[in-house]
């Protein structure tokens, strides 16, 4: 890439920063509306009557709200973690929090609690996420840096996966195993306003915490010592990141199951457009994540044969080719 081209791009990125945010917000809003308009019976508002109101308010609205919140949380947490670790391949799952949430939810199904009480499933997920976050913080220790945090996250994540498969293995009956597996695949189907009331406050609180990390992440561009010299308290930053991710991604996973790749792909795609400063990427990734999850979910419902496919499967199907593209791009850039 020639210098001139790079210069123009960078200046371009600076001047179009706000319009990009505006476009992303518009995209997320349109996706939200599309999510309200789309159902298994095709496009359009269900017309008239109590049944129509029920469909819109009880079925489609919670699904759209959760799609926006969960997508936003995943995109935002991904951008924060990539900034914190200064690694464009980081994603929220690395902290072990989504693994913990899955384990908690699977235990709720395994124990039969979810059969007795609908909210036992997300509650199990929330408890799992919280315990995983505490375990990661304790494991990482008082004064450790990002690398130790990730090692702790990977350890907790592996443990959670091992225990999750154990629960699947020992499941009391085939129906329970199918329920666990389907839940693990990630979906927004049949979520109610109760799920929204449970998850929304936690996701929003976590997102607010994560949004405050922007400046510290910018400073980390220069390494940990220079960042400290620029006023960053690394310990407080780490606590904010783990707590913010536990609240937002933990609550998201607790109500939807695992929706992968959003936290990885969205910041990666937006970085060249909004600029490379981590701070600029945070709101953009939140909006982009919301738009991606809402669009994927609406698309699923629109095409009848796809309606049985789980949302987490679709995001994975989008994510894998993205990696292939990344390989090709990197090879071209580094190649002769």
């Amino acid at each position: 890439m020639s210098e001139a081209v790079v210069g123009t791009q960078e200046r371009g990125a600076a001047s179009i920063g706000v319009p990009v945010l505006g476009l992303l917000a518009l995209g997320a809003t349109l996706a939200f509306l599309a999510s309200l308009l789309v159902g298994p019976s095709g496009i359009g508002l269900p017309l008239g009557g109590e049944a129509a109101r029920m469909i819109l308010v009880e079925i489609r609205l919670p699904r759209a709200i959760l799609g926006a919140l969960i997508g936003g949380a995943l995109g935002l947490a991904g951008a924060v973690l990539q900034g914190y670790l200064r690694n464009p391949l980081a994603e929220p799952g690395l902290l072990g929090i989504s693994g913990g949430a899955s384990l908690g939810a699977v235990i709720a199904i395994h124990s039969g609690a979810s059969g007795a009480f609908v909210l036992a499933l997300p509650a199990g997920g929330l408890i799992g996420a919280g315990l995983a976050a505490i375990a990661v913080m304790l494991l990482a220790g008082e004064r450790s840096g990002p690398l130790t945090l990730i090692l702790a996250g990977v350890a907790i994540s592996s443990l959670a996966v091992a225990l999750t498969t154990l629960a699947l293995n020992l499941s009391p009956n085939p129906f329970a195993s199918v329920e666990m597996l389907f839940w693990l695949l990630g979906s927004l189907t049949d979520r109610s306003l109760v799920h929204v009331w449970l998850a929304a406050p936690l996701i929003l609180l976590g997102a607010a915490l994560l949004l405050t990390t922007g400046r510290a992440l910018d400073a980390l561009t220069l390494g940990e010592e220079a960042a400290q010299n620029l006023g960053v308290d690394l310990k407080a930053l780490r606590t904010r990141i783990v707590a913010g991710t536990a609240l937002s991604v933990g609550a998201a996973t607790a109500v939807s199951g695992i929706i992968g790749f959003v936290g990885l792909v969205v910041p990666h795609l937006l970085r060249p457009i909004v600029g490379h400063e981590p701070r600029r990427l945070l709101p953009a990734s939140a909006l982009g994540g919301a738009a991606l999850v809402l669009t994927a979910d609406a698309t699923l419902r629109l095409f009848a044969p796809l309606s049985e496919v789980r949302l987490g499967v679709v995001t994975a199907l989008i994510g894998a080719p993205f990696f292939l593209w990344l390989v090709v791009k990197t090879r071209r850039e580094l190649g002769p």
Partner: protein
Amino acid sequence: MSLELTERIEAKGVGVWLGGRHVLEDVSLAVSTGEIVAVIGANGAGKSTLLRTLAGLISPGEGAVTLGGRRLSDLDRATLGRQIAYLPQERAVHWPLTVRRLVALGRLPFRAAIAGPSAEDRAAVAEAMATTDVTAFADRPVTELSGGERARVLLARALAQQPRFLVADEPTTGLDPAHGLALFTQFVRMAADCRAVIVALHDLSLAARYCHRVLLLKDGAALAQGAPRAVLTPELLAQAYGVRATVAEIEGKPVVLPIEPLP
């Protein structure tokens, strides 16, 4: 913090343990505004550790570092960042920020939580870029610059903090002679402007020529401290570095020339 309180940074009997090793042992150094002080010594002598301790990045296990009589550990990070700028030896830049945005990071300790840059911030950034001669590539990504250019950009970040004390770890490494001299000219200007520079160096001629005082470290302890003339002697250099060196004067400037390693 009032100005008169911050005119002196002082390390008293500082000892630092890292990974079970006594990296610094009973080192004392006081630097007042108006001074340029060089910290010299062989690789692994403890220069970087001392600089980090003076910048408040490491809390000493023994002794204390004070800024205007207050322990660094009692001051919050943003306050420290407005008084002391630390330029690490490591020159990694993790994202391809443009030069201008990277230099602007130096204003973070001055900015309120959500506020954008003020006119004062912009002026400080522009001045720092002009001083280090990087304005010409202000809009290029830092990651595409040469090593020496990048070093100047990182220095500009530290200058943008407009610090009372600049703590710089081997800032001349990788600079061409013109920019190396320009750097020390800038240090002299800063000292005249009631600021102070503490700099770790391997170029002993620069230390002899520009620094008011020199601290010579060996194995984590102070071997000598004082005026360049008193510290940069063949005997002390032989002890500290294990080299035979000649100290001469050319065109009225002191030159320290290592001749050969001692057996």
